[in-house]
């Protein structure tokens, strides 16, 4: 069942089109990874979903309610962590956490203290003394001590160290186990890969790819490293083979997943000594779109951005 549904969302800021028909669907108990380069429209989408800005077109519902009309009701069941956490310099972290939890309407003190300990946060410090990572921790503790049904997290780990990133991932897995849903916008692809059931890639205000990770992997290439007795002839002429580089006796190249079978058959004629294959990573996928964009721009009118 879809908890969050957005259809053809559009938003313009003056002449700039920030969103150009964004579709999004997050089902119950699902972790949705929302990825894309800077300025692609991730935060704009999230702000529309929170009813902080109004979409020019399209519709968005959370829990079956309109995100603009019923914002307050929806927010009672949502926990949100903004990408850029600005806090009041003269309040302490503990005060801010309590305030945030209270403004949502519920309170769960035992979880709060447990989370403060887990994230290793000193709640008695004033916010002006916190680093970026610590301010993020304040927002994360406030979000996860809330008993929400949907967690909207906008690049929540950009300031955390690897240890804290792991604590964060545990928290996400915990809420998933409880059957809650998460919309996670992120730059850290390994994190998305580890956590998310479904991924949506946004570029220039459009969702260009969406699906489960295994679905998306069909769209991408497998990395192969092959060493053969005789050199492989005219490898570059095969369909679906890219980026050939020689590595000593071996060659390294990428193969379109749908051409994998024929390429392996061809290569085996030359007497395979070593064969290593690496699954396509989300990073490859992401970079492919990213590079595609760069290529397109270079080929275009001279990269006016």
């Amino acid at each position, binding site marked *: 069942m879809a908890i969050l549904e957005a259809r053809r969302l559009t938003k313009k800021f003056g002449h700039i089109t920030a969103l150009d028909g964004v579709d999004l669907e997050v089902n119950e108990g699902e972790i949705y990874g929302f990825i894309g380069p800077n300025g692609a429209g991730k935060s704009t989408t999230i702000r529309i979903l*929170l009813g902080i800005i109004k979409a020019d077109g399209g519709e968005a519902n959370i829990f079956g309610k309109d995100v603009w009309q019923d*914002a307050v009701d929806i927010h009672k069941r949502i926990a*949100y962590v903004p990408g850029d956490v600005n*806090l*009041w310099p003269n309040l302490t972290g503990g005060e801010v956490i309590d305030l945030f939890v*209270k*403004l949502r309407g519920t309170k769960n003190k035992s979880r709060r203290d447990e989370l403060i300990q887990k994230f290793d946060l000193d709640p008695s410090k004033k916010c002006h003394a916190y680093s970026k990572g610590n301010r993020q921790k304040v927002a994360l503790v406030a979000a996860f001590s809330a008993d929400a049904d949907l967690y909207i997290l906008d690049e929540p780990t950009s300031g955390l160290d690897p240890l804290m990133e792991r604590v964060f991932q545990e928290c996400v897995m915990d809420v998933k186990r409880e059957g809650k849903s998460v919309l996670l916008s992120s730059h850290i692809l390994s994190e998305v890969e580890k956590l998310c059931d479904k991924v949506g890639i946004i570029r220039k205000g459009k969702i260009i790819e969406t699906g489960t990770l295994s679905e998306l992997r069909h769209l991408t290439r497998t990395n192969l490293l092959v060493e053969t007795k005789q050199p492989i002839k005219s490898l570059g002429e095969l369909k679906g083979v890219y980026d050939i580089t020689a590595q000593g006796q071996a060659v390294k190249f990428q193969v379109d997943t749908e051409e994998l079978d024929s390429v392996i058959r061809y290569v085996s004629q030359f007497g395979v000594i070593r064969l290593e294959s690496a699954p396509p990573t989300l990073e490859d996928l992401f970079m492919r779109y990213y590079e595609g964009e760069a290529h397109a721009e270079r080929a275009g009118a001279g990269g006016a951005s």
Partner: protein
Amino acid sequence: MSKQLYAHTERLSRFIIRRDRIRIPIWLFSLTIASVATALALANLYPNQEERQAIAKTMINPATTAIVGPGYGLDHYTLGAMMAHQMLGITAFVVGIMSILLVVRHTRADEEHGRIEIIRSLPTGRLSHLTATILVVCGVNVLLAFMHGFGLYLLNIESMDLEGSLLYGAALGATGLFFTAIGAFFAQLSDSSRGTIGLSFAVLGLAYLIRAVGDVSNQTLSWFSPFGWVQGTEVYVNNYWWPIFLTVGIAFVFIILALYLNVRRDLESGFLPSKPGRKHASSFLLSPLGLNLRLQRTGLLAWSIGLFVFGATYGSVLGDTESFFEEVEIMQELLRPKEGVSLTEQFLTLLMTIISMVCTIPALMAMFKLKGEEKNNRTEHVLARAVSRTHLMSSYFIISLVSGFVMLSIAALGMGIAATTAMDNGIALSMFMKAAWVYLPAICVMIGIAVFLIGVAPKLTGLTWLYLVYSYVVVYLGGLFQFPDWMAKLSPYGHIPKWPIEDMAFTPVAMLTMIALVLIGSGYIGYNKRDIAG
């Protein structure tokens, strides 16, 4: 040894000057121009000795003494004596603020942001940065002293000779040096720039208070305050120089102490233990209204104290209005006396206009805090939770409205208390309150404009301040410039009946209230519809 401590002090000094190449001249010129302009204004307002003697009489009351100091040469109240009496203490106070802010900016604030760390990692001495800061701010104060000295002397006013003018400047500069030292000293004790500024300002305020209490009750007490020393110079009357040396000497002691403490401590630590804040929020804080009250607490408190003193300043001279007006021509133009009402009452209504406008400032600031929070990306924290926009805006609106009312009442109270203690045939305190409260509808209109602009055209909120300045010029100074009546009618303050000298007119008051309600209503609707920036 000295290289270890002071390497590159000169280069760092130049760096500090470069960083403040706009800030320092603004302070220096605005202070000097303000002083010179005041001296000129005094010379124009009170050109002859009888007028000045009349003013001197109005100055001898506890309220005035507490605010500006005891005054010397009151029996022969020359322009110089007048300037030193009415301006020196207050200006020295502002110079103290300037010195503290400049010092903290380059010491604790830089340290807090990790910038001193970078400088210390370069081949600079351990004390170079602190020494450079002290040198620069001391230099600023020396410059200020000379600018005042020559600026006032060049006015060519008979009673303001070169020695007196230089002493006037030196008194300001010495106060500046003293508070430079205080700022540098507390920057070693506290471990945050907020804490340093807070402690330094506390000393500044306490020093002024000690002087005020001492001047009213027991003069010996005043000698425990740097402001007592400054006024002990008796500038333009007796020209004593020794208090300057005393002030500079004590400043020097604090500077040495600051340098000593700086060498002894670790970077980014302080000698005072920073007390840990609350781990849990008090239940008072846990609502948008509580949050805003907490955020604006200090500012509102400062405004209340300031406005009480402001009201009291006017109140203390109110009792002598009659003699004041007979002697001073320009005041008659400002007021244009009416038949059948006492000058005091008439003057009271004029003062209420200005007081109500000044009280509008904190009310507007409280409302505009909503926009400031949006700019700082902090409204989204609140709006992303179960708080409606109407609720959020109301929490600012209520504080704005209440602070408008409270500020007005406090200023009127200050004025009333000072006036009734200074006056023989006192006006009842309740009359001051009522004369102030008639202005509430005008303040509501101003708040309404603020709400409207925040909701509908958040980029244009600055217009509100422009409108307030316009109101000040046409309504308060209108009599002086002889503006046509309709110009004053373009301001909400121009429609307020001048109670008690005019009858209470309810129609304009009701109209203003209606306008305010419409503005507030449309502002709310707009705020509920528009995009929030953050």
